């Protein structure tokens, strides 16, 4: 039986969290939600590497850089390699570069199209599987 993919949506705005979560649930994903960085890290630790991708919306300045991606990379174990896609209203090239430098793997600018988000999630998962074939999941 094929393993159900698992997405963690980190977003303090219930509206955006709901839209993204429902779209991926409809696609057959298991969806977990968090409203803060701490909540996201707890969920990741508890899932012990079972989460395939994190989608997070963060304003860089308010959180001292794209802190969540950095903190995920500092985790112990397989969770540290979880791909992160950042949704952000700041989309200047320098903003995107800052997102990627923080350890995030993908970027989607807001306002966003759910199809674009889906494609970006698929892209970062392919990149992860190519970088670490052992992490690839059926």
């Amino acid at each position, binding site marked *: 039986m094929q393993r159900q993919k698992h997405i963690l949506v980190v977003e303090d705005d219930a509206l955006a969290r709901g839209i993204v979560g429902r779209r991926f649930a409809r696609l057959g994903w298991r969806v977990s939600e968090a409203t803060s960085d701490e909540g996201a890290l707890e969920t990741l630790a508890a899932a012990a590497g079972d989460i395939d991708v994190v989608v997070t919306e963060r304003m860089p300045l308010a959180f001292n850089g794209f802190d969540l991606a950095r903190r995920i990379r500092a985790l112990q174990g397989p969770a540290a390699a979880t791909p992160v896609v950042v949704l952000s209203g700041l989309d200047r090239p320098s903003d995107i570069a800052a997102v990627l430098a923080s350890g995030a793997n993908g970027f989607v600018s807001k306002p966003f*199209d759910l199809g674009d988000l889906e494609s970006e999630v698929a892209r970062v998962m392919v990149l992860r599987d190519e970088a670490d074939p052992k992490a690839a999941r059926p």
Partner: protein
Amino acid sequence: MNFAVVSRVVVAFASANLALVAYIVLRRLLQHPSDPKREACRARYESALDDLLAAPGESEAASLLTYDDDWEAEELQGAILSRADLLRGDSLEIMTRAFVDSGLFEARVKDLGHRRVWKRRLAADALGRCGSQDAVRHLVLCMRDNDDDVRSIAAKGLGKLRAVSAIEYLVSLFRDIADRSCVSVADTLISFGSEALPALLAASGDPGSSERTLYWVLRCLESVGDPTGAVRAAHEAGSHIAPALSHESDRVRAAAAAALGRLGAPSDLGLLRDAFEDPVAEVRRQAAAASGRIAGVDAIPALLHLFADPDFDVSYSSSRALLSLGEPAVDAAQSLASTATGMAYKRALEVLDSAGRTVAL
């Protein structure tokens, strides 16, 4: 008229008023149901809309987007527009379709002609956020509304809809709308970025443009700048902006110098010659900053000349502009320090100090 007749009239009048008040209160109660009822209604709509976004091909959710009462329409509109604000592309199109198919679009267009101004404001806001290009022509008509807020909201909506077709019309509005509305129109034009440049440049060089149009158009040009570098590469700005540099209005000349500084080519430095000698300090200050930006080291002689300007801000702006030009400019300041006196000498020393050079006094 006896007392009995008068009292009957008074009682009848009071009863009629009481009945009217009771009717209004009852109507409001019926139209504004309790919070739990509204919340349940909102949740139903939100769930249907999220289902539509999750699986656009399934039409069952769309059939739930109907309403019988005004308050239900309000809830549905709020749910659609809050999602439309977050989305773009195909996802936004789904929300736009929900807004149109549910009849809300038509209802808001009708509201634009409502005698109550708050209805018109809310309608303009909704149409600007709904994502439908069909809203553009209605919002353009709103720009003739006699209420400033309706016009401002409509201008913002046109920007949100990326209504490129409305750019020329928006530019023409500067001619005859109040200054307060000019700010909204300018913000909208600036939000179009380089797409607005052709219309703005054309208006800046149009001899028929009014003083107010010129001022606002030049302010927009300064804010937009030349993000792609195409205007500078084509040496396009100088010929359009040059007439405004000698306009009789102080604020137009200052705005023209600032705009040229953002869009001009190095060969446009000569156009600023008169601005360096302008009787108005703000024009000279803008010209100093502009010359450094567009001409690089070629602007050094003009900037050194402005060091001696009697106005502190002009002199200070010149030294800042010079400092940004690097080593050749600092060398020039060093030469000046050995011969100049007064303010020019002081500025030259400041430049050398900022550049980390020591000067033997």
